Structures are given as structure tokens and as C-alpha cells.
């Protein structure tokens, strides 16, 4: 830390929080709140005379409330920077510290928080993790039995810079314990609290046990566990070393800890799985290996940085395998336990990686973005005409659309990843997607349905999944109906209801609305937007009396070639089961309704030209091939 604080290119701002973040990759504007210490950083020399005279003592959060701090104090003697701060909640403003500070005059009770704006190119989030509070687990008696402590509290006791100068003592009487039990998975792998495994605690327990055994060779140590997870390099060997040192491992999760009120000793009751019997063993002290949980302020960080959370509250990576250090927001990266609990080697590796990825942004002159971006026709937007809307902004998974009532939305181009959800959500067709405009897609629909549309199965596929699935069906030679005609969009979110109505208006026999499975969407929540729309369409067509199976919604992955072929064949069977006259009659009956619903599409720029172009293509096609019967 000291090296970092002295590096000419590193600016360490402690006691500072991020209030707001604006902008986009390479061009972020970050507002910082430099909280007031009531002590000038450039004047305080860390002598500590102020703390010595301060009459107020409060629990020290750094020492996990095992030791006190003065109202003016420094969290630990190696703090960087070594500048004292005043805890104004407990300070009585007696000014003894000011007196003691004397000529340095570093203390100023009039100081206020300072707000500054900084320009940054990229952001790395490394906010770490917090510890589970086992008070909620009444069966372990934490908080009631003084000699039941958490692992992190034990670390402070064992630390030579800690409150007991490294002596492990029992809170109840100050004696050194002879028998110690460590209980793993306190709050981890527990559906009542945190279902996930905290990753490092098995090694953590073994490390603590080995340290204690080295410091107190005669100590009797038992570790109660469900499983021992020591996967990385050298870890299994370390586990063996612990066993060789005489540390006892008991497989069996304790269900109960009771206390002898006279001695303060604890009785740990667990089934010893290896013996197949419940045992009750007496200990002088019990250490609970608490779970790693997300920090309490992850929700506000998520909102300030516009990054998402995975289940459990850990920040969400772009892709768990392929891009574990990126967030879906370009220019914001993740490192360490805030992305998911992990040990020190993994955190350090991630830190290096995140720095490298963040460095790419900062060292580049230009940044390549997605060309398939959305744009607004401001003259068609009803928000610009004073009406309330904002549906486009709601659909965007990246927060790329800045929406203000009374104005047309502003699309932050650098943040647009090109799903097209906003374009399709717009009820007034006031938005377009470059390279996938309504006119272009409509021209494709028109051309594909130019001849004998009632025989055609028109399949809308998303680029990343269902198109891949169809492709796999092809290369795998899975046979499916040759009446299928496929059409590609980037995401199922792009599939405007108007496309479906238009397809049926033009006489399509069957239409398939397909995309990724919900958890696979390349644009995170694009599929959700598409799915919601598809459900509405299904209900509408049901109410209109359409033959079931003519409109179908399926989520098909790039690996599901077999499924794609099967779905198309099933749709062909639906068409085969309908006598042709009936099908044509149904198409004709619904035509006007479909036309009415898709009417706004007719007003989209270049629709007419595209339609004419489509007709020409169809004609040229007919001219080249002999007429099929």
C-alpha cells in the first residue's frame, strides 16, 4: 500500500466514496465525495499525540470491536496514509486533541466533505466482501456464549498487531484455550442464509489451525466440516500437512452448541459421520468459520455504475467463462471477491487481469463499438411532442438510452450493443436499427412470402442462438421441411410485433418466433423483452381464433439443431392437417385485422421503396426459375 501511495502515477484517495458516474467507455466523469476526517492530510504526521489525550473510547471496527479506539484515532498503526480521523458521532469536542496537536495545527472541526469531478477512461470495481454475522444462527450461541467467536475475530486475536498482541485468549476469562473447535460452513452452503460455497474458507480454517498449532504446539484442535475443498496448487498437500500436525478433522456439521454456565466451556454436538454416531465434545473455545457475503452497499454501487448482480449479490460478469473480468457496461471491470468469493491468488490474478483490460481502454486512441446500433427519428417520437413514454429506455439492457420527459430519447452510441429491443418496443416505430431497419426486414419478409405464402413456414431467428441452431440442423443433415424460410435478427428483442402481423397479412402459413434460452441471451435481458412480446402475440392470436401451432414461440440454443428441425417439422404437420381451403379462408378472414395492427409500419421511412424493391426481387426470381407447381 505504501508503494502504491508513493507511485507517481497512482493517486490513492482514502476516506473517499464514488457518488456519481456519468459518460461511457473511455469518457467517464466520476464524482467523488472526499469525506471529512477533520484532520488535514498534508499536516498530520501520524504522531498520535491527539489520540493519547482523547477521553472518549469507542469500539474499533477494524479490530472487530475487540479493542477500543479513541474518538480521534487511526484504524490501525499501518494505515495508509497515516492520518488520524475524528469519529464525530462520539466526539465531545473537548478540543484536547487540538491542544495536543499544537503547532502542526492539523485538526479542524470545521472541515466539510468535498465533492470533486474526475475524468477517467475506465473503472475497476474491487470492493471485496463482508462477513456473515452468525448471530442469526441461534443454535451456535454466537453473541450469547462469550467463548464462541468468528474466524475473523480469531484472526485479530492471533495477529501480533492485534488487540492482544497475538495472544489467543478466551473472552470469558482471558485464559489461553487448551481445546479449540473450528466449525466450517457457518452461513455457507445453507439455504436459510447463503446457498453458495464461500470458496476459500476450507483453506482458511486449515491455515488458522496450522498457525495456532505452530504458536501453541499443545493445543487440541478439531475442525468440524461437511466437505474439505482444497482444489488449487499445493492446497491438498497443505491439508495433509495439517493432519500430520495432529489437527483433528471431524466430518459432521454440528447441530448445537451448549455452554456450561460455570466454566464458560462449550459442548459441540455433531454426528461424527465416520463413526456414524452423535458425539458431544467439550471445548474451551469455538471458532465459527463464517461465510463470505456481499458488502452491504452493493445495491448503491450497482446503481451508480449501472452494473448488474448475479444471484447472491455478487457483481455480474459479462460471461462467467469467456469474460469474467468485464461487466456488460464497457469500460467497467471487476476484480476480486466482489465478483464472487475467492481466495488471494485468484483475487491477485483477477486484479492483474482487470488492470490490463482497463489499460486497454486508457491506452487506445479509438474504441471499436458495435456498428449495429439504434437511432431515433425525432420527428416521429411522441415523447418529443410532450407525451409520456420512455418504453425504449426501459427495454435497454445497458442503460444506453437517456430518456427525459418532453424530449426525444438520446442514445449513447458507445453504450449501445445492438440488440434492437428499443426499436421493436417503440409503439410509434420512431426508432431504427442500423443494418436491421424495419424496411430491410420487411423487404425480406415480403420476398420470402412472394410465392405460395400459405405453404411457407417463416422462421425468425436470433443471430446468437436459434440461427446457430438452424445452422447446426443443416450441417448435421437433420431433415426438416423445405417450406421453411429463415430470417435473421440480432436478438429476439428486435422482433417487432408488426413483423409478425405483416407476415400473416401477406399470407404466411406459419410463423416461428425464436431466440435464446432466457439464461443465454447475448444481450442479457433482450430475450426477456422478446419473450414478453411473444406471449402477448400468442394470446392475441388465440383470441383471434387462429389455428394453434400456426404461430409458435420457441427458445432454441445454438446446440439444439435437433430441436430446430423437430419444431419446423411439427409446424409442417400443423399445416398438413389443415385442408388448404380452410387455411386460405383463415388467412383471408384475419387479413384486415393484421393490416390494422401493422398500419403504423407503413409510415416508417423507406418502407414503400423497400416494398417495391422486394416485388422486383420476387419477379426476377420467378423469371429465372420455371414456375413450381
Amino acid at each position, binding site marked *: 500500500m505504501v508503494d502504491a501511495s508513493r507511485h507517481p502515477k497512482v493517486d490513492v484517495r482514502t476516506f473517499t466514496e464514488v457518488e456519481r458516474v456519468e459518460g461511457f467507455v473511455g469518457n467517464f466523469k466520476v464524482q467523488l465525495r472526499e469525506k471529512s476526517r477533520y484532520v488535514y492530510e498534508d499536516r498530520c504526521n501520524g504522531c498520535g499525540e491527539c489520540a493519547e489525550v482523547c477521553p472518549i473510547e469507542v469500539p474499533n471496527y477494524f479490530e472487530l470491536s475487540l479493542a477500543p479506539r479513541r474518538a480521534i484515532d487511526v484504524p490501525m498503526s499501518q494505515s495508509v496514509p497515516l492520518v488520524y480521523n475524528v469519529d464525530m458521532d462520539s466526539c465531545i469536542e473537548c478540543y484536547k486533541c487540538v491542544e495536543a496537536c499544537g503547532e502542526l495545527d492539523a485538526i479542524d472541526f470545521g472541515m466539510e466533505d468535498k465533492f470533486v469531478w474526475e475524468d477517467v477512461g475506465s473503472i475497476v470495481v474491487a470492493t471485496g466482501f463482508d462477513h456473515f454475522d452468525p448471530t442469526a444462527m*441461534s*443454535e451456535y450461541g454466537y453473541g450469547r456464549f462469550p467463548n464462541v467467536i468468528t474466524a475473523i475475530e480469531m484472526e485479530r486475536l492471533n495477529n501480533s498487531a492485534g488487540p492482544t498482541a497475538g495472544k489467543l485468549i478466551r473472552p470469558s476469562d482471558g485464559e489461553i484455550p487448551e481445546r479449540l473447535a473450528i466449525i466450517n460452513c457457518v452461513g455457507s452452503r445453507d439455504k436459510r442464509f447463503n446457498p453458495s460455497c464461500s470458496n476459500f474458507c476450507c483453506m482458511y480454517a486449515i491455515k488458522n489451525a496450522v498457525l495456532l498449532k505452530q504458536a501453541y504446539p499443545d493445543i487440541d484442535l478439531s475442525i468440524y466440516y461437511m466437505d474439505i475443498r482444497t482444489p488449487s496448487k499445493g492446497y491438498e498437500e497443505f491439508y495433509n500437512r495439517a493432519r500430520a500436525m495432529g489437527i483433528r478433522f471431524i466430518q459432521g456439521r454440528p447441530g448445537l452448541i451448549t455452554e456450561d454456565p460455570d466454566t464458560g466451556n462449550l459442548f459441540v454436538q455433531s454426528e461424527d459421520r465416520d463413526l456414524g454416531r*452423535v458425539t458431544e465434545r467439550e471445548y474451551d473455545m469455538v471458532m465459527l468459520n463464517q461465510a463470505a457475503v456481499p458488502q452491504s452497499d452493493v445495491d448503491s454501487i450497482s446503481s451508480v455504475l449501472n452494473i448488474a448482480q448475479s444471484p447472491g449479490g455478487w457483481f455480474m460478469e459479462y460471461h462467467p467463462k469467456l469474460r469474467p473480468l468485464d461487466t456488460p457496461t464497457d469500460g467497467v471491470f471487476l476484480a476480486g471477491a466482489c465478483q464472487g468469493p475467492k481466495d488471494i491468488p485468484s483475487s491477485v490474478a483477477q486484479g492483474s487481469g482487470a488492470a490490463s483490460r482497463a489499460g486497454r481502454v486508457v491506452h487506445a486512441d479509438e474504441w471499436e463499438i458495435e456498428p449495429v446500433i439504434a437511432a431515433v427519428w425525432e420527428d416521429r417520437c411522441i415523447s418529443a411532442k410532450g407525451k409520456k413514454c420512455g418504453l425504449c429506455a426501459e427495454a435497454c439492457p445497458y442503460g444506453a438510452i437517456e430518456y427525459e420527459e418532453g424530449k426525444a430519447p438520446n442514445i449513447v452510441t458507445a453504450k449501445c450493443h445492438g440488440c434492437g429491443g428499443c426499436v421493436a418496443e417503440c409503439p410509434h416505430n420512431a426508432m431504427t436499427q442500423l443494418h436491421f431497419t424495419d424496411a430491410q426486414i420487411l423487404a425480406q419478409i415480403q420476398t420470402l412470402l412472394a410465392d405460395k405464402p400459405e405453404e411457407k413456414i417463416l422462421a425468425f431467428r436470433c443471430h446468437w442462438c436459434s440461427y446457430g441452431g438452424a445452422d447446426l440442423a443443416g450441417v448435421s443433415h437433420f431433415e426438416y421441411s423445405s417450406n421453411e424460410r429463415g430470417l435473421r435478427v440480432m436478438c429476439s428483442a428486435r422482433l417487432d410485433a408488426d413483423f409478425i402481423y405483416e407476415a400473416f397479412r401477406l399470407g404466411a402459413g406459419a410463423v416461428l418466433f425464436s431466440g435464446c434460452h432466457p439464461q443465454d441471451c447475448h444481450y442479457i435481458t433482450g430475450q426477456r423483452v422478446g419473450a414478453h412480446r411473444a406471449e402477448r402475440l400468442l394470446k392475441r392470436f388465440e383470441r383471434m381464433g387462429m389455428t394453434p401451432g400456426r404461430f409458435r414461440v420457441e427458445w432454441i440454443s445454438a446446440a439444439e439443431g435437433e430441436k430446430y428441425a423437430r419444431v419446423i417439422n411439427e409446424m409442417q404437420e400443423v399445416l398438413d392437417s389443415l385442408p388448404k381451403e380452410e387455411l386460405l379462408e383463415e388467412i383471408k378472414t384475419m387479413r384486415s385485422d393484421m393490416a390494422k395492427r401493422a398500419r403504423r409500419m407503413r409510415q416508417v421511412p423507406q418502407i414503400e421503396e423497400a416494398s417495391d424493391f422486394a416485388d422486383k426481387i420476387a419477379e426476377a426470381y420467378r423469371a429465372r426459375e420455371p414456375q413450381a407447381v
Partner: protein
Amino acid sequence: MADHSSQTQSFADQVRAIPGGEHLEMCYSCGTCVSKCMIQQKVEPEYNPRRLLRMVMMDMREEAFESPTTWLCSACDLCYPACPQEIHISGVIGAVKQLAVEAGYESPLETVSVDELLCSGCGICVMSCPYEAPHLVEKEIDGVMDRLSEVDANACMGCGICVGACPMGAIARPGVANKEIREQLDFPRQNGTPRMVTFVCDWCLRADADVALLESYPENVQVVHIPCTGRIDPEMALLALGSGIDGVLVCGCAPGECHYQRGTVVSSCKIGLLNRALEQMNMGDGRVRFVQIGTQERGRVRSEIDGMMEHLVAWKEAE
């Protein structure tokens, strides 16, 4: 609900199909349930809910039906809130028991029996039983149609709550019949020290040291062991006080921890009412006391007995 008599379903599937039996495959054998269970500790070392779930998962049908775990579980649910996989363990065991009964197995427990001549068909036993073991049925007794209580022996857990509840004394359970308890109330005076009788349920003292402690008291403290404080009839307390015993202490499980689910609810109500009646008769000297001891309260029983004795000494001196 799936047809669980089908032969094509695996044993595990059959258990899962019964409400309460779901999610048993989530068990990762941590052993927490076994360590919380009082039955394993106090009654039957082979009792092991974790092992039973494993037997079900491995389709070991006969072993599961013959396991003591299947029959001894009283669904006190000390295990359920402790299970990190949130499996309703007593529900799984109950499902196995249901299948076992259907397959013709019978409960090995000491169950209650109804004296048909004494039973008045009032139905109080039906209301008091946590296991829905007694039912009112129409039966012909001496040529006359009568309504009587009949107990399903496979559902009865032998707690004795109905024995204590029955106003006619028509239900009995070997070991805790009224006569057997009355005999234990007949113990000699000891010079001038107060005499007290302590009713202790079989489950409220988890620590073996606490149970051993009970036997270490001199003869002026008579300990009567009962399966559940729900077995207590207020008449016993009156009988004790009437025969010259100075105090009655009843020790049961903490609220929510009763081994037979609601025995302590029943007993706390009954003893509460008794104490109110004693007060109305100007006999409310705190000589009948009901205490509920939690599984984590090691050593508390000693302070309760000592405290009661002190109270009685003071009361005797004041007389």
C-alpha cells in the same frame, strides 16, 4: 399426487410423491439433523434420519421399512429448521412410514389403549392428540350402538397426552398409567425439610449430566419421569398437595421444542388454569410450578429445583 402403489416407480420416487417427501435428494449428508435429534441420543443409538434418507435415495426399501428411524420419529421438527438444504426431514420419514404401513409393517412402539366401558365418546382425546391417532367410531357394546374412541396403533407415538386429557380416565399406557404415577407420589417425610415432587419429561434435559443430576437429589425430592408434560393431569398435583407434599415442579421442553409437538401447550394451559384455581381458593403460594427448559440451557434444571426448594423452605417457615 402420483400413484405411489405403482411398481414402475422407484422407492425414492414413491417417497417423493407423498407431500412432505419432496427434495429428499438434496440431502448432502451433513449430519446436522442427527446431531439435533433427541431420539438418537436418549432412546435408540441406531436412530439416524440422515441414514434413512440415504436408504431412500438408494432404493433400500426393506431396510428403510425396518429401520427404527421410520417408527420413532415424533415429528418434533428440531431438525427441520436446522437443515441447510431445507428438507422437511420429518415429512420424508412420515412418507416412508406411510408406505411401510401400506406394505403391512406395524409400529413397534408402546401405544395407548382405550377402555371401551369407560369411554364416553366425548372426543377430547381426538382434539388433544398431535398425531390424529384416536378416532371416534360407531361400535356395538353389549348390544347397544355407542360412539367410542379407537386408537390407530401405527399413528400413536405413546406420548400419553390423551391419557392425561381423558376426563374418564379411559385411556391407559403401560408405564405411565394413573396407578403407576400415584404410587410414585407416595414417598416418606424427611424430618422437617419440605417434600417436592418433580415431574420431568423424557426430552427436556439434553445433557447427560443434567439427567444424572436428578438422581443425585435426596429423598425429599421425588423425580417422576413421564414421556411428555402433556400427560400431567391437574388431579395429580392436587393429589400430591393433598397428601402432604409441599410442592410440585413440572419440567418440560421450551416452546416450539416439545418432542410431541404440542404437549407443552396442553400442559402449560392445564397447569396455568390449576394455579388460577388455587389462587381463587387462597392457596396460590407458587407451590405448583411449570418451567420450560430449552435444549441449549445446560444446567438450568439444577437452578430450577434448588429455586423451588428455597421457595418451599421460605413458605414453610412463613406458615
